């Protein structure tokens, strides 16, 4: 019955939030890196 588990009743969309946060962090890291590179030029 459902693979030996009780039904999944949590919010399944959290994966999109995780990916979204990762993309935002990646963008922020990229911007920070570019800013740092600009400081040493």
């Amino acid at each position: 019955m459902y693979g030996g588990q009780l039904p999944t009743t949590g919010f399944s969309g959290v994966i999109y939030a995780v990916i979204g946060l990762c993309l935002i962090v990646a963008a922020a890291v990229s911007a920070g890196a570019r800013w740092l590179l600009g400081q040493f030029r």
Partner: protein
Amino acid sequence: MRVLRVLAWVSGLAGCALLLFTGFLAWDPVAAQRQHALIGDLYHQWGQPAQVSQPNRCSGSVPQVRPARGKPFALIRIPKFGVGWKFTIVEGATLAQLSGGPGHVTGTQFPGQPGNFAVAAHDITAGNAFLHLGDLRRGDRITVTTKCDVYRYAVQSKRVVWYTDIAVLDPVPGQPGKHPRKQLITLITCTPVTLAFTPYRIIVTGHLVSVTQRVSAVGGVARASGRRPS
């Protein structure tokens, strides 16, 4: 350098879009429409004569319900959640089936059968059906209406279990193989309320208090006689 800048902007915007999409999913503004459609489908079924594969359930002592996967077959009301709180129960409890509201855990019993009628629903999304399941207390009423009957249950216990504890679905919860004598209802949702995965499920169990005939919308009686639970 320019390519990196563009990539950073694109990923940042995509990330924001995904966060907004997540908010949209959690808010679920079309849940009410889906539920409205399911209720319409249910009342349409109840207005139809019995199918060949579904003998006239209102003429026997125990309903022989064989609903199709994803199809609604009952209404659940919990007065403590409000006068207007009403959801259909569809057959099945996969993510797709729970997207419209509560679902019957396939393999467990149906109302009117000795054993355990298990119903699962999301705490958030799909109308937030079981968001306040943890607020139920001993003695609170749960009403399930099928085509023929109205089943009234009283909450008798509430507990939190691990998501693999399927013994709560047994006909006699926690006692696999034991022949059921009582008619129980088990309501299941995730706890605590969170946007992330949680391995815990809150389990509310109730026992049948009474069964009465359902009075149809046109004033007719769907069942010939009311009865007490066996």
